[in-house]
């Protein structure tokens, strides 16, 4: 397949105009050259048809299951309209809106996304997205350290373990330290809500502890559909809210691309990393949008920038903006209620079968159980045979289970009865 429109004839004319005999003459400067290695050892080109066949076969080597798992990636329903809009060439194939007059669509979408994040989290201002929840958290920590000049990072229990790993990696690079105490060397205190085990909590006590020593309080929201029914972090004193927006209209896609978001209170505006769209007027007084505060960003601040971030994940931000618009207040609450009730239904059934439920707090759509002694492995492999990914196997025979609106009452019934059968057989 060949997307090169220039013909042999064109090529001859172009070379003549440039004043050379062949393309090789243009390559003179690009030494050293590899010996003409016959195409880098790659295979023959493929036509569109052949490519499609090949990719289908490859994709069929994967096995899709019924998902009862979350742990950072959530299987939600994406209304059909999201994709249809997203595939419009004007959204899909444009670049960063450096030239505002050419990109009013993207810029307005950024502004609306920023607004949605603020409305959901209770923050004053948000950027136009970051790579994913974990790196957004890392960037929030860098922001915090740049703000108060301190190096200690306190992480409350219950942060997604992968997020902890990412934080460690970034901190190592930036000479920051993850600590066990909150004191005047602490730059920020981090809490996830709902946490990795699904627990919901009013984190005001953490916020107070942070502020008492002059540290910032960061809340991390990995399952943001929870924000439809749970008090937002702005309510309990968060200075920064970060999180993962994948639940808002983005497919699970084997882990990416996802959607990080970051919102802050007003006083941190000048430190916020990433792109921000702002509303303004043109020379005729018409409302329009531009990227603003670019002087914070790497292409201007260079080594004085808080962050090196260049791309955001604009298309994903647009996807979630469209999702939130389509679902609306009513639809989003509905999603959250379905998630909540399905999870609690399954949890109840499992509790009746001697599964110990380990959440000591109210939970949203994820919960932790311990299978009857020694049997987690068995339970999960049996479910797997029936095409069900029953949860995430953790230490001590624990299983982290998630339900969303995609888990029908039927699915939950099947899950429970397969386990039941299995246990009766013993």
């Amino acid at each position, binding site marked *: 397949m060949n997307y090169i429109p220039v013909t042999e004839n064109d090529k001859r004319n172009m070379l003549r105009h440039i004043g050379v005999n062949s393309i090789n003459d243009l390559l003179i400067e690009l030494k050293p050259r590899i010996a003409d290695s016959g195409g880098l050892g790659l295979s023959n080109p493929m036509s569109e048809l052949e490519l499609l066949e090949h990719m289908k076969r490859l994709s069929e080597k994967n096995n899709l299951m019924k998902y009862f798992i979350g742990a950072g990636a959530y299987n939600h329903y994406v209304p059909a309209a999201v994709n249809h809009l997203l595939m419009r060439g004007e959204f899909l194939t444009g670049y960063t809106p450096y030239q505002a007059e050419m990109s009013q669509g993207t810029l307005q979408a950024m502004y609306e996304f920023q607004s949605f994040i603020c409305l959901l989290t209770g923050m004053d201002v948000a950027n136009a997205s970051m790579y994913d929840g974990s790196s957004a958290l890392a960037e929030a920590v860098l922001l915090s350290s740049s703000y108060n000049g301190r190096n200690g990072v306190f992480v409350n229990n219950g942060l997604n373990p992968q997020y902890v790993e990412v934080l460690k990696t970034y901190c190592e690079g930036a000479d920051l330290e993850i600590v066990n105490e909150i004191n005047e060397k602490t730059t920020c205190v981090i809490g996830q809500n709902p946490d990795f085990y699904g627990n919901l909590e009013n984190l005001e006590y953490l916020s107070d502890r942070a502020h008492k020593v002059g540290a910032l309080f960061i809340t991390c929201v990995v399952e943001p559909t929870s924000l439809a029914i749970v008090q937002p972090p702005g309510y309990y004193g968060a200075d920064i809210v970060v999180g993962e927006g994948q639940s808002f209209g983005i497919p699970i896609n084997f882990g990416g691309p996802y959607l990080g978001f970051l919102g802050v209170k007003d006083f941190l505006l*000048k430190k916020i990393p990433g792109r921000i769209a702002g509303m303004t007027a043109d020379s005729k007084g018409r409302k329009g949008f531009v990227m603003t505060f670019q*002087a*914070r960003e790497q292409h201007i601040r260079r080594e004085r920038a808080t962050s090196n971030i260049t791309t955001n994940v604009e298309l994903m931000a647009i996807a979630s903006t469209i999702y939130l618009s389509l679902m609306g207040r009513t639809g989003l609450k509905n999603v959250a209620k379905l998630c909540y009730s399905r999870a609690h239904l399954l949890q109840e059934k499992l509790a009746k079968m001697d599964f110990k439920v380990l959440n000591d707090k109210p939970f949203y759509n994820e919960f932790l159980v311990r299978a009857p002694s020694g049997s987690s492995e068995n339970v999960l492999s049996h479910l797997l045979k029936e095409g069900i990914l029953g949860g995430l196997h953790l230490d001590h025979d624990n299983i982290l289970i998630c339900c969303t609106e995609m888990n029908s009452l039927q699915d939950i019934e099947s899950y429970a009865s397969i386990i039941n059968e299995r246990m009766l057989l013993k």
Partner: protein
Amino acid sequence: MGSLEGTKFTKEHEWITISSEGLAMIGISDFAQEQLGDIVSVELPKVGSKFRQMQPMAIVDSVKASSDIYSPLSGEVVQVNDELSEHPEWINESPYELGWIIKIKPSNMEELDDLMTAGQYSEFVGEMGK
């Protein structure tokens, strides 16, 4: 624009004038504001912070650029022009008066000899255009 006699300039386009009380007022030159374009914000140092000569002490942001402001003399910050957060445009419109940025208490007046006079700065800027 009042008379610039007695005002001294740095190679980085800051100006500094010494008051009768021995305090120094600092800002950026007309040339600098012209180069930067419309100023949108200023990041000011905390009162009480100390700087060595030519150490960056503040940042001035325009739409397209971000510029460090270097301290023309060593000293301690005694006052900053907080109103610039509401009126960053004063730096463009009145760089030597309303748009003053920082006041310091210099610790070594001899450092003034390292700086250029208004006339020398004028020449310096003229040279830059070439």
